[in-house]
């Protein structure tokens, strides 16, 4: 029954936007990582559902990558890195949570206006998937600009990337989706290893990006 299939896909994609909002107001890193695991889990279910309704078995691979790698391996690794590096601190934000949430609502409204208008010809499922995906991408960007901590910037980037995977799976029959999700996983693995190496080399006393920004090679 197409109605029900559509509703479930819609629910899952909308759920992803909602979890993105939850990421926006977390003020502790460990809580942020847990919510991110939830984000990746919702994505995995959503991709699996798309695989089912599009009858595209290769998308199950993407779903499995999202589930195993992003919902389990990366959060666990980041939790361990946090413990090893002793960062149990709260997340420093550039802007308060209130204005950030308002900006987030504005971005979602913007992506709805843009995407729903330009995709009038496409079928409704694809349209709404794209609109939701763009919302998740923009919210990910918002997380990256409003956080000072390197770990939370990475979480912002990963949620952004989840939005891209949602868009790619929503675009029916798109080739290379699995390859792209693998490429992104490699990218993220590099980032996580990078954070770890930064500290292992003991070059940085902190993973707080504000401190990094104090270095400006030619502005003494």
């Amino acid at each position: 029954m197409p109605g029900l299939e559509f509703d479930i896909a819609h629910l899952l994609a909308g759920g992803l936007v909602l979890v993105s909002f939850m990421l926006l107001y977390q003020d502790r890193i460990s809580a942020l990582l847990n919510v991110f695991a939830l984000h990746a889990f919702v994505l995995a279910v959503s991709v699996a559902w798309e695989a089912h309704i599009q009858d595209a078995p290769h998308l199950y691979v993407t779903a499995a990558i999202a589930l195993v790698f992003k919902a389990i391996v990366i959060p666990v690794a980041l939790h361990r890195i946090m413990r090893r590096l002793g960062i149990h601190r709260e997340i420093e934000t550039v802007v308060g949570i209130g204005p950030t949430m308002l900006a987030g609502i504005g971005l979602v409204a913007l992506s709805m206006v843009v995407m729903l208008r330009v995709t009038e010809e496409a079928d409704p499922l694809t349209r709404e998937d794209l609109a939701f995906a763009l919302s998740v991408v923009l919210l990910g960007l918002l997380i990256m600009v409003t956080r000072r901590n390197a770990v939370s910037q990475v979480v912002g980037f990963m949620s952004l990337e989840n939005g891209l995977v949602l868009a790619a799976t929503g675009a029916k029959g798109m080739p290379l989706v699995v390859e792209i999700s693998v490429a992104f996983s490699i990218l993220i693995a590099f980032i996580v290893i990078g954070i770890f190496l930064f500290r292992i080399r003991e070059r940085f006393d902190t993973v707080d990006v504000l401190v990094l920004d104090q270095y400006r090679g030619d502005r003494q």
Partner: protein
Amino acid sequence: MIALLFTPEILVLAIPIAAAGMVALLPNYRLTARLNVLAALCTFLAAASLFFLDRPETGSYLLIDDLNIVFIALSTFVGFTTSVFSATYIAHEMETGRLTPVNLRFYHAMYQVLMFAMNLALVANNVGLMWVAIEIATLTTVLMVGIYRTHEALEAAWKYFILGSVGIALALFGTILVYMAARPVVGEGLDAMVWTILIKESVYFEPELLNVAFVFLLLGYGTKVGLAPVHAWLPDAHAEGPTPISAVLSGLLLNVALYAVLRFKMLLAANPVAIAPGPLMVTMGLTSVLFAAFMLYRRRDIKRLFAYSSIEHMGIIAFAFGMGGPIANFAGLLHMTMHSLTKSAIFFAVGHIAQVKGTQKIADIRGLTVSHPVLGWGLVLGVVAISGLPPLGIFMSEFLIVSSTFAREPLLAIVLAVGLLVAFGALFLRLNTLAFGEPVGSLAPTTASYVPLFSHMALVLAAGLYLPGPLVTWFQNVARLLG
């Protein structure tokens, strides 16, 4: 079957990837440096043969046409000369202990992977494949920028990483939107991402979807080009990495990202209802020129100075392609070629300087023409070329861009000319203290090879005096192709 494997477009991919594997395994760094040069030379020869051999059939993955042959030949040539420079440069880095043999194996392997990724992005006929290739190129350069493992190098690499990743993510979203636009016309599956099919069918695509896609693609790949609002990674990455990498970044990687933008620009231009992509590129280009020109005055680090100059020149090139038309496109192509050659030559000179003086601070480098005449005059020649003085090649391309713009949009031409003059002033102000006056600091002779520096400058000078007929015809063809 065997012959199929040895076609040039396969070789430009296969040689670097095989060489990357080999240099990663060999322990002797002198040998790997030579192997690096040899592999880069073979890749260049394979690329050059593309000009003479018959074009292969266009497949769903690979494409060879007039446009990308120019890019491939240029990038493999600069890749080769940079590998020669790098081989002599690296020995000094070993002596001073800045790099260990393990670092070097990694460095050479990454160099070849970067060559592979750039060639793959250039020959890709599939927009998804092109995206993957540019992502690999970004990753390898991030690793090389951070290779010195100092605080500054790691910070530069981190900044590049985060900004580059965001750019790449936006470009992917744009690519997905292009697929969405193509799907109703071309049908589901691989064909809807093949560029040659897209360009044929582009007339029937949903124009609004293409518009939004292009904005994402321009911002995404524009980050990698280093266009103004999204350029922040570029100066740090150039300043903190090894100098051969600065040369490759400025001379090649920026071009490859620009090539991606151009491919999508052609797609939009083929659709009559979609927005004209030109004005967007003109705006970003002009902003970059003005911004970089004024920022040049505040630089105190020599590599940063020339990194900002790269932003300026990428702005000029984006401006020229944005204006479009046969003359502006021709000038844009010429400027891109000249800029790649000149800027990498300047970075070779800067690499020598930084090694001799042990510093990159402009204030600590003086009187180079007195203490190191060959090097000093090489730098003077490079800066004269890059600031667009006659009779060198960049003068000709800048003159063509400004004069053709004057004929169509006089106001824009005035703004561009102001930007060029401001940048000219800044570069000469710095050059004056760098090259002339009483020498300061170490007088030790340089160890690295001057051949790459002067061979580039000779080409730029030759192009400024006389452009061979076949080359002009070729560029004119490509300019027509670009629309």
